[in-house]
């Protein structure tokens, strides 16, 4: 059983933010390799002002995910992002644990 009580609040927040008229994107960890700080299924919700709730890593890549999410909110097109030590962007945003994660970012609409 994979249960993370805090995730309940994140998905509820996504619904509430949307109902309040904000542009909203949902990021979900879909795959991990090596030591990843947050399990598959972890969520991050982002609004069009860059506010966010939840986590997809231990805080290492959230900044990059938020930036991409703003794009997704604008275009409406989902994106899959990958972060890891072998990845060019990883040097910039850094997954300090040495793992690799793939994050699916989609607009709530």
């Amino acid at each position, binding site marked *: *059983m*994979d*249960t*993370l009580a805090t995730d309940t609040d994140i998905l509820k927040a996504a619904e509430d933010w949307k109902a309040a008229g904000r542009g909203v994107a949902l990021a979900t960890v*879909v795959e991990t390799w090596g030591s990843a700080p947050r399990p*598959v299924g972890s969520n991050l919700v982002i609004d069009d002002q860059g506010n966010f709730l939840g986590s997809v890593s231990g805080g290492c890549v959230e900044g990059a995910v938020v930036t991409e999410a703003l794009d997704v909110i604008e275009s409406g097109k989902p994106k*899959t992002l990958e972060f890891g030590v072998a990845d060019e962007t990883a040097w910039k945003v850094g997954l300090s644990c040495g793992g690799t994660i793939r994050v699916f970012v989609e607009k709530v*609409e």
Partner: protein
Amino acid sequence: MRLDILKALNTERAARRAAVVVTHQESGAQRLITQDKVAADPLKEVLEAHLRSGKSGVEETAEGRVFLTVHVPPPRLVITGAVHISQALAPIAALLGYDVTIVDPRTAFASVERFPGVKVIAEWPDKALPPLGIDRYTAFVALTHDPKIDDPALLHALERDCFYIGALGSKKTHARRLERLKSQGVSDEQLARIHAPIGLPIGAISPPEIAVAIMGEVTSRLRLTAEGRR
């Protein structure tokens, strides 16, 4: 994600029902599978496997590469006995993300002063437990040492298929408990589900240490497969 899917998903979660969101990686197309719709879905086998493990993940299927987001209800802990161990157990369990309820008909024990911020019900189990909707995402712990309180609660926990059932007491106390429950028609297989003496063997002595041992054992039931626990 479509707002109607998100809303329906949140409704399922609020009702403590399991659900899976299937997302096609290429197109981003999505559907929500509620518990009652699993059997009729083309991905039935894959869905069932993921619901059993409670884990989300990517699968190659006849429909192509899909991501399954598995949502199972957050775990709850129901305790009989507003005792000293419960005073440590309740905050530790809350920290681990459990929604905690304590049941004890003895009003001197079940006081708000002793359990600030915890849901405490000063009723007998036969009255207090049925409305709680105890399910297989609930851990149940019997701590009163009083068969009049613990026994009916244990019967209810077994009936509701709690993922963890533990009872405080020495091997001797537990042997007597098993005899009592057996005489009430509980099978050996069911009785074997009760963890007693309760908690991981970490040499716990003080009530907070016993609480840690209990939550360690509850966590292992929640997170490890049968092989992993060996």
